[in-house]
């Protein structure tokens, strides 16, 4: 198969499994975002792909070939480090030309390629500048250009945008995605910003405790989280316990949810429902009775916190849908069955 395949890849530091039996296959040209809480093994996994960390067990295949025994400098990959690792004593042009110089490319050709790359990252004519004189976003781009100089087969980025301010970060996300689509290069980005993952990825890999919890398209990750960990980590969600009663109905907070049923054999579980899917109604029939405790009006959206017998349910609405619900009001919380995802506890 063309692309990147992980076969039972693990990495142990002493007794501690930083990466635990990872199996994943990434088709060629895919943009992968690895997402997960701090310390879950994202960087370690990425470094194993780069050969900077040796895997304890398992193999990594690139286009069908086992690359585990290949040393880093022969893997033909581009990597952008969180620190960027620009060479401080070289100019922008010399940084970008470094991999070309290593391959002893002719001087003329080097110059042409550098200018081509600098144009690609929207910094034409910057070749002579020292890297210390660049802004954060510009340094970011130079690191990307340097990593792409040899048209690598794999492009790896470890939290490349975390040092940038929010606005620049969003712009760079779009740019990075466009660049990747233009070059059609298999790309893995580590991030712990789930918005970033949603913006850029074809495939989102959610990791927790060294294992892959779910690998799916962004929308599937959001709509159909595989477990409570993923549901909770991606976006905000309401996690509520659900029980099946003797009639087979699904009961949430004492009220049946019409149209929802638990899978066979499951007596108790969790449902995940996104705040924007929760309906609030005054004086409606059915639904869970609750009291509005707090309203956070963010302008574009309104978050309503409802206390239903000790459990807080969050609903997000647009100002138009808000109606006349105010803090302290008694409301009925309606959970549409088709928006509820049933998860094992």
């Amino acid at each position, binding site marked *: 198969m063309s692309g990147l395949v992980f076969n039972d890849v693990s990495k142990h530091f002493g007794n501690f499994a930083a990466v635990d039996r990872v199996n994943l296959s990434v088709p060629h040209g895919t943009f992968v975002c690895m997402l997960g809480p701090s310390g879950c093994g994202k960087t370690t996994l990425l470094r194993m792909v780069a*050969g900077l960390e040796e895997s304890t067990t398992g193999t990594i295949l690139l286009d069908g070939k086992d690359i585990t025994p290949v040393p880093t400098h022969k893997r033909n990959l581009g990597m952008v480090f969180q620190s960027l690792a620009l060479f401080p004593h070289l100019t922008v042009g010399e940084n970008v030309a470094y991999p070309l110089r*290593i391959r002893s490319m002719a001087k003329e050709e080097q110059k042409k390629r550098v200018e081509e790359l600098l144009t690609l990252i929207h910094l034409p004519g910057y070749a002579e500048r020292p890297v210390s004189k660049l802004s954060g976003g510009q340094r970011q781009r130079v690191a990307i250009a340097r990593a792409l100089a040899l048209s690598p087969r794999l492009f790896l980025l470890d939290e490349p945008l975390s040092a940038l301010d929010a606005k620049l970060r969003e712009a760079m996300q779009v740019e990075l995605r466009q660049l990747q689509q233009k070059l059609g290069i298999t790309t893995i980005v580590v991030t712990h910003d789930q918005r970033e993952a949603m913006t850029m990825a074809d495939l989102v890999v959610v990791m927790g405790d060294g294992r892959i919890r779910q690998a799916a398209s962004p929308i599937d990750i959001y709509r159909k989280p595989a477990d409570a960990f993923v549901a909770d980590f991606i976006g905000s969600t309401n996690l509520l316990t659900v029980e099946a009663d003797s009639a087979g109905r699904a009961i949430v907070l004492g009220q049946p949810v019409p149209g929802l049923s638990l899978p066979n054999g499951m007596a108790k579980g969790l449902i995940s429902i996104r705040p924007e899917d929760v309906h609030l109604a005054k004086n409606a029939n059915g639904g869970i009775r609750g009291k509005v405790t707090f309203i956070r009006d963010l302008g574009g959206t309104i978050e309503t916190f409802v206390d239903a017998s000790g459990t807080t349910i969050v609903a997000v609405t647009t100002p138009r849908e808000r109606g006349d619900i105010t803090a302290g009001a008694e409301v009925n919380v309606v959970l549409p069955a088709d928006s509820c995802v049933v998860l094992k506890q």
Partner: protein
Amino acid sequence: MKREPPRTIADYAPLAFPAIMLIVFFVVPFSTMIAVSFFRRQQGGFYTPDFVIDNYARFLSAFFGGVLGFSLMLAITVAVICVAIAFPFTYLLTKASRRVQIVWLVCLLSVLSLSEVIIGFAWSTLFSRTAGITNLLVPLGLMSESQALLPGIGAVLTGMVYQALPYTILVLYPALVRLDPTLLEAARTLGASPLRGFFGIIVPALRNTIVATLIMVFVFALGSYLLPQILGRPQHWTLSVHITDQAIYQSNMPFAAAMAVFLVLISLALVGLTLLVGGRKEVA
């Protein structure tokens, strides 16, 4: 924290102590030495105030010129050897675990506590025919019979490098610890073998540190005067040895002072030149 610029004399008070120390222990003795270097020598170890340049003129002879050249070359060689050994060593040390680092640094610090005399006599024993390291090589079949490795330039260099190496490592250590470890990793992902990345990226990226360390070891080695006497032959005596010789044994203070002043000037000139060359490359 933003601080007001000093305005009254009293604001400069904190500077008084270092200023006085500097004047008492550096400016005054050094000025005295410069003055003495122009005095006239009297037979019997005395000198009278005067203004003659004989002392400098005598110094510009072939003999003392040779001694000066040898001293400078020796100091440069020691500096280069020290940095060449210490830089890769310290780099690897910073990659080791904390415990290994601490053990090494403690050992190095304990070497610092040894005086030049002890180092000199220790090496002279180690290099001797009767009790030296060659006695170990004989049973191993590497040598037919034990021999003396001193006096000689090799012994002098060994002793001086041994003495200066801990300083070199301790000066390089902070810079290398602070070095971004991903620099070398980045070079590797870009196609450079670890060795090539080390010499192509790490060494140039720390050029200023290396130059500063070279200068420090150079100045340090220039002052060495016991080791060349213990481990070397008279032709390996440095200018420092001759200065001592003139000042103490020949009782020729003005000439010793002139040599010392000259040595300081030459060292300053060399250091300045190094910085100038280093500084120019930085811009290019």
